[in-house]
């Protein structure tokens, strides 16, 4: 087969240059800078820095607050990812079966997609509010004295609920379109081959959805780790002390509220390594089990 190519070597480089320079300036350069400053102790007022070697890292590992955040991040990410994926899949499977009023139903489910994370946080705040939140009153009926921003568990609960709610529509849209791209006749063949609806789902439907699910898994982990910043910021704003926070939020709190730029950089570097490891794991371990049609 004839390969299409450029006649000069410079044209492709020239065409790639805008994209490459954006990546270099906004991703690699700050990342390199973060790595560098993680080995220094910065003067809070910007008057200089002292090389401290690995000290920023060792103090992280000795900080119980940091370890607690790390622990919370793992739990939070797992919960948000698993819940938002499984609930969205359930809703998509059900919505796929709806015949009457399917469009209205789907539109309603997708609506939340348009809500920005901080706004979602504010809506969460209103729902869970201490004085006039309807959900707080609702929990009270069951004897649950819900205290947002005061009780660690209650705050974490609200964060998970709002984060899952915000992410559901994205997953829903992808799962629904994934379901609808499965040929009708393949499902009908399964209908004749297997009398059990759950058997058909796990043997035929789910494997054919796997490429979508894998894509969403990556998107959702990234979301839970990073994009929930806006929601967490709105929920814990002003009083981060005893409240749960994710590692990403802690980078911001320690770096820009606490002015510990070196320590905050060290945290960023830890996060970078974590994400790198996670991505490698996902592609090596999970993706090879997926059949792409």
């Amino acid at each position, binding site marked *: 087969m004839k390969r299409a190519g450029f006649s000069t070597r410079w044209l492709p480089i020239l065409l790639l240059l805008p994209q490459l320079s954006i990546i270099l300036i906004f991703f690699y350069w700050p990342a390199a800078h973060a790595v560098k400053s993680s080995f220094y102790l910065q003067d809070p007022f910007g008057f200089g820095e002292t090389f401290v070697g690995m000290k920023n890292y060792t103090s992280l590992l000795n900080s119980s607050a940091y370890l607690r955040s790390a622990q919370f991040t793992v739990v939070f990410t797992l919960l948000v990812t698993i819940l938002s994926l499984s609930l969205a899949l359930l809703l998509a499977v059900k919505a796929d079966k709806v015949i009457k009023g399917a469009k209205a139903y789907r539109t309603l489910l997708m609506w939340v997609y348009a809500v920005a994370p901080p706004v979602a946080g504010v809506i969460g705040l209103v729902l869970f509010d201490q004085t006039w939140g309807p959900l707080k009153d609702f929990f009270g009926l069951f004897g649950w004295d819900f205290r947002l921003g005061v009780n660690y568990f209650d705050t974490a609960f609200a964060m998970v609920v709002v984060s899952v709610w915000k992410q559901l529509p994205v997953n829903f849209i992808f799962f629904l379109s994934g379901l609808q791209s499965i*040929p009708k*006749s*393949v499902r*009908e*063949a*399964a*209908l*004749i*081959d*297997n*009398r*059990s609806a759950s*058997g058909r789902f796990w*043997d*035929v439907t789910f*494997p*054919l959805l*796997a490429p979508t699910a894998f894509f969403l898994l990556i998107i959702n982990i990234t979301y839970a780790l990073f994009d929930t910043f806006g929601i967490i910021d709105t929920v814990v704003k002003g009083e981060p002390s005893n409240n749960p926070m994710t590692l990403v939020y802690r980078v911001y709190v320690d770096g820009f509220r606490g002015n510990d730029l070196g320590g905050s950089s060290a945290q960023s570097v830890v996060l970078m390594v974590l994400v790198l490891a996670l991505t490698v794991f996902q592609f090596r371990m999970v993706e090879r089990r997926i*059949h792409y*049609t």
Partner: protein
Amino acid sequence: MAQVTLNALRKVYPNGFEAVKPASFTIEKGEFVVLVGPSGCGKSTMLRMIAGLEDITEGDLHIGDRVVNAVDPADRDIAMVFQNYALYPHMTVRKNIGYGLKNRKIAKDVINQKVEDAANLLNLNDYLDRKPSQLSGGQRQRVAMGRAIVRDPSLFLFDEPLSNLDAKLRNQMRIEIKALQRRLGVTSVYVTHDQVEAMTMADRIIVMNGGEIEQIGTPSEVYHSPASTFVASFMGAPPMNLLDAMRENGAVMVGGQKVAEFDGSGLVTLGVRPEDILPDTNGAFEIDVTLIEELGAHRILHAVWAGQSIMISVAKDVAAETGPLRVVIKPDTLSYFDPQTGRRL
């Protein structure tokens, strides 16, 4: 093997469209029945009702000695071959063929043996560990067949299984399917819009049009004694010539010439197959040949007879040229239809 009986089976969609008008017929044990008709005639809907993929609006469906109206497709003891094969893309050929058995709680070694046997029968041995995407169209169609035969169902259903294949492969698979069905002796219902498939494969043909059954009969009955002008023009390529004729004094006249003896009076539609009109220098009728289609084994002559266009089919060794031609009509091959209703008289 099972007998299948449809008792006034009817399908009306929620939007009020009556896809299948009440239809009744019985398919005998081991019989190969072909449902044929133009697209939208309700043949696929009929098949899907038998399969259980479509709800039955009214009427009873018997497979064997059970009424299966409310039985799930998986419990009807049927196997279906779909137009686009409907293979599970993520499973190997082996798993595709064995999937239906696996869900019927059959021991693994029995499944393996049955899959091997089916693969042997269909020449798929070398492909058992491939995925469908690595197979050609004909091979995929065989896998779909394998999935059907491995289960030993009492009824095979085919939904236009060959229409995605190229012409050559279609002819080959047509014979393979027919031979396989003969060998296994499984009752089969086969849907197609291709009248050649219907003629060559069927024990009995059911011709459908507009949700209604036009005729049920053997290929020869349907071809030689069509029950309506629709069947006459749908079956056969080229189709039966349909001519406006007059009945006078116990004779049928075309263009003022007597063609045959027939009772009654008034207009009648005369049907004559293109191969039943023969060139003959002493022929009683003169037609005007306007166009000749060369098909190798035979030729189709397009002609005008008494102001009406007709086609005649002649063998390759009959010299043909455009212009006037004298012909005879084989007398006992004619069909007569009511010009209003189109039904056979």
